[in-house]
């Protein structure tokens, strides 16, 4: 039996799914290794989520404060992740990020400069020293454009506006992928010796999110159904500052850079409430008063950071508390004020517009607010998933041979909470590693034939919604799922509510089997939503199930019924895998051992 002619068949050594920072960096590395590379993305090239990143990428180059170095960055990352991180990955990341940033410069990126002409670095939450290389507040654009413009000359083949719906396997190994193109709705089969997943995040599982329609956790679901394990899925980062008004932009990100440049949070009583609650682990790194906080913003090396720059999980919870206590802003957020710096510096309006140009425009155009003279209203928004495919820290390979993962879809680097700026550096450090090892794998292994019966069965399932005349509306199911996750598995969680969420998810899974689609296969967003829905349901279930079984509050997970951190829970990561009967199995995996040298680095930096 062979594939019917209606399938378009491609063949590569390494297939990269996703063209954000991680996917492009992996593809560049694999191409450099001399293998044939294909890259697939759901949108046009250069439009992936990475383009939206604002604040910067973390790398301990020490250009602004020479006390910085890989050890400090490593310790900051582990502390931020509440020590659930994979130390092997945190070490790679801290050591290799500076070289990855310089490499971007060699490929044409133009970062903001220090007075002596080096790459400028800015402050961000949880980073001890100014560490984020940046370009105003459009760092992600610079990163993705640089990789894109370099990548298109390296020989990779790019498939734009195509979506992978399933990984193909034979003899336990991955041997390709099945997908469709948006333009015509034709089916494609990509044969490959190795596959790199770089599909980004899951924000669309929640109602309020900074993520675009692409953030439906496809790679998480593809890997899970192919037999890989998902780790740390309970850790979903709610960014403290999303826009809250007008309703249509609710959730849109307000970069942490606003606070890095001196922005402060106030409640309706005008109080800087972040001073009221400073966690012990950070007490000796936080400013005593407003005056010291401002000196830190101005670069005084003897000053400690203002409490607004504590880790995101903590800031988000404090904001949530103010809102719930009735001290919020008119549209259900709190106030973020950068305009106040006019008391401190001349020409503050021009300064703000130069440092935060896209924030200035975003508020001006979408909310009618001039941030150089008025306060913003902000509230928490679903932003990033720390959890993802469990990979080997040195190679990025999953437990399925030939299947690699890098970037937001992979787990391990960030543990229970990611520090701002550690994602863009994650993309290039681990994108490179994944590309390198996928190419190695492809060179060492022969291609295996795909099974036409597997392809036929999977394709038939995709086409079913067209055959139904009546049935469920995919948008309606999606929005019910988002409501359930937002309300029941959000910033503050309890056992009972999450069990209810599981019940709803099970129900929606049944209803999703009955969606009906009108129209044709060409560029049909209803059909695409129906397909993405399956991924969202898998991801939502793994978030809820992992969160139920972690009976403590740590990092991004806050349990109202277990409000304290529990030392007994500091020894394992939660892992989900698909069991033989198709149900989701959740287990605890002991933390990987840490080398003595790394332990002493952490002690030294305490």
């Amino acid at each position: 039996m062979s594939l019917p002619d209606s399938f378009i068949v491609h063949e590569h050594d390494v297939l990269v799914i996703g063209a954000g920072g991680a996917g492009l960096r992996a593809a560049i590395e694999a191409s450099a290794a001399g293998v044939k590379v294909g890259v697939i993305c759901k949108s046009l090239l250069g439009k992936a989520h990475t383009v939206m990143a604002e604040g910067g990428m973390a790398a301990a180059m020490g250009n602004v404060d020479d006390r910085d170095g890989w050890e400090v960055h490593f310790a900051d990352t582990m502390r931020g992740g509440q020590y659930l991180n994979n130390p092997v990955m945190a070490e790679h990341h801290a050591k290799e990020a500076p070289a990855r940033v310089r490499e971007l410069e060699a490929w044409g990126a133009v970062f903001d400069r220090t007075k002596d002409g080096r790459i400028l670095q800015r402050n961000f939450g949880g980073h001890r020293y100014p560490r984020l290389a940046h370009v105003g507040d459009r760092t992600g654009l610079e990163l993705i454009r640089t990789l894109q413009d370099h990548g298109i000359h390296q020989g990779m083949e790019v498939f734009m506006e195509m979506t992978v719906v399933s990984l193909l396997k034979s003899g336990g190994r991955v041997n390709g992928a099945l997908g469709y193109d948006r333009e015509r709705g034709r089916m494609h089969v990509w044969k490959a010796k190795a596959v790199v997943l770089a599909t980004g995040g899951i924000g669309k599982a929640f109602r309020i999110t900074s993520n675009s329609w692409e953030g439906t956790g496809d790679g998480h679901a593809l890997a899970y159904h192919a037999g890989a394990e998902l780790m740390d899925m309970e850790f979903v980062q709610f960014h403290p500052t999303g826009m809250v008004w007008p309703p249509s932009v609710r959730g849109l990100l307000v970069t942490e850079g606003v606070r890095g440049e001196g922005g402060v949070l106030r409640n309706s009583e005008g109080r800087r409430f972040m001073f009221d609650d400073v966690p012990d682990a950070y007490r000796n790194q936080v400013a005593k008063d407003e005056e010291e906080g401002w000196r830190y913003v101005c670069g005084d090396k003897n000053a400690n950071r203002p409490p607004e720059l504590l880790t995101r999980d903590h800031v988000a919870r404090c904001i949530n508390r103010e809102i719930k206590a009735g001290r919020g802003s008119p549209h259900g957020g709190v106030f973020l004020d950068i305009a106040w710096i006019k008391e401190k510096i001349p020409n503050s309006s021009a300064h703000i517009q130069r440092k935060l140009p896209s924030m200035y425009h975003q508020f001006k155009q979408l909310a009618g607010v001039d941030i150089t003279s008025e306060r913003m209203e902000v509230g928490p928004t679903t932003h990033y998933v720390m959890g993802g495919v469990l990979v080997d820290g040195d190679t990025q390979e999953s437990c399925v041979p030939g299947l690699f993962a890098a970037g937001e879809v992979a787990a391990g680097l960030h543990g229970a909470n990611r520090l701002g700026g550690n994602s863009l550096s994650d993309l290039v450090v681990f994108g490179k590693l994944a590309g390198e090892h996928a190419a190695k794998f492809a060179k060492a292994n022969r291609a295996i034939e795909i099974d036409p019966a597997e392809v036929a069965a999977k394709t038939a399932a995709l086409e079913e919604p067209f055959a139904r005349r009546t049935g469920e509306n995919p948008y309606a199911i999606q929005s019910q799922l988002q409501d359930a996750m937002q309300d029941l598995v959000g910033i503050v969680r309890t056992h009972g509510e999450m069990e209810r969420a599981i019940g709803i998810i099970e129900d929606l899974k049944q209803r999703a089997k009955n969606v009906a689609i009108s129209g044709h296969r060409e560029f049909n967003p209803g059909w695409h939503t129906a397909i993405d829905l399956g991924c969202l349901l898998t991801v939502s279930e793994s978030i809820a199930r992992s969160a139920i079984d972690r009976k403590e509050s740590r990092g991004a997970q806050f349990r109202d019924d277990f409000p304290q951190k529990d030392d007994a829970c500091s020894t394992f990561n939660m892992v989900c895998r698909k069991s033989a009967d198709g149900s989701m199995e959740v287990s605890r995996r002991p933390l990987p051992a840490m080398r003595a040298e790394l332990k002493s680095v952490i002690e030294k930096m305490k």
Partner: protein
Amino acid sequence: MASPASQNGIHESTRTVEFRVWRGDRSGGAFTSYSVQVTQGMVVLDCIHRIQADQANDLAVRWNCKAGKCGSCSAEINGHPKLMCMTRMDALPADRPVTVEPMRSFPSIRDLVTDVSWNFRMKRRIKPFKPRKPDHADGSWTMMQEDVDRVQELRKCIECFLCQDVCHVLRDHHKHDEFIGPRFLMYTAALEMHPLDTEDRIADLKQENGIGYCNITKCCTKVCPEHIGITDNAIIPMKERVVDEFYDPLTRLFRIFKPR
């Protein structure tokens, strides 16, 4: 659940707006009318999404960021090339229907989605960045902020292709084979002005990339959502370099003797 806004007594007005959206494909199409309930603060893209969710599940549209950062949602709104996500409903005239149609300089695929692949092909034609040897042992360079300000301005481009859409050389004269359009003239300029770059793209600009077709109407600059000075800061300086290199006898003489 009452919204926090109404609890606080802020009035959020709703009105019904008539939309005329172009529906069709490669073979042709026509405007279809939809009525949309519009609340305060909505942008055109929100209305398109509302139509898609309630009235036309299969309405094709591109978008990603909803914040003017990705350049996906380009369209012609009431005849003007704009980003749908950054066009507020209250900025449009209330007394007539809002028309939304795809960019007209590119072939239609379906509804609001056009085939912009030509742009990706044009970019590949331009010689890539080629830096001089690093200044320092760690592979880094020294560059002053004032020397990169201009390049950073040009690198703000989000590749929405609205400038390409509006340029008459492409839109009316269809010189797609001989002219790369404002986006890529500017892209070339950003490479040429990069302090580290050592490549020479001036001959290409004049010959296959057709900079001579641009007669500085500045229509591209007017529509750029990133407010980049496409003509003044990129195209005109490149035109000057072309003139210097090709028509100034003294420069030509130097070119002969300058070791390359």
